[in-house]
């Protein structure tokens, strides 16, 4: 889960390895807000798989790569 200067840098870094998923850093920032925003809340309880999937779905991350099961 790394940052790169551009998609071309990801491809060069991967070499012959299979590509995972690439998203813009702006989408990552949205994802972090949705995913971690409640982490320090006194009322925090573990997210269910459905809740986590809903966060990804809500951000348009609906490719099979982003499915929990």
């Amino acid at each position: 889960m790394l940052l790169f200067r551009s998609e071309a840098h990801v491809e060069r870094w991967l070499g012959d390895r299979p590509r995972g998923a690439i998203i813009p850093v702006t989408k990552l920032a949205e994802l972090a807000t949705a995913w971690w925003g409640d982490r320090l809340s006194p009322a925090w309880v573990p997210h269910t798989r459905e809740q986590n999937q809903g966060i990804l779905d809500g951000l348009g991350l609906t490719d099979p790569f982003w499915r929990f099961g």
Partner: protein
Amino acid sequence: MDPADLTVRRATYRRFVELGRAPTPAEVAAVVGAGEVEVRAAWRRLHDAHALVLDEAGDIRMANPFAAQPTDFRVDAGGRSWYANCAWDAFGIGAALHVDSEFDTHCADCGEALHVRVRDGHPDDTTLVFHVLVPAAQWWNDIGFT
């Protein structure tokens, strides 16, 4: 999840935020009024529930998004600093604290130093990209590698 374990988790995160590093069992025990053995037992259950991550010695490795060991993601937020486990977590520390943040890392390919400022949840450099190697269904198979 057992309410007592959630109390230990809250205390663990609170002390992590306050100290800028992972707390010891004694530091958490002092907050919750329990013994170190009870704290370690709660940590193990929380680890099994993916609510935090322990190392082989049973100490805190990750209280996501916070990292116990130095990483390539050094985050400043609210006048304090922590390490994050990955780029996602680097954004996550500011998100969890609900404050603006900034972090230093490097392009994993070319090594270029990257300094990212996050204001109101938005990064100042919008040209960067994020790569995830492992599919979501396999993230917890080896969370350290993920």
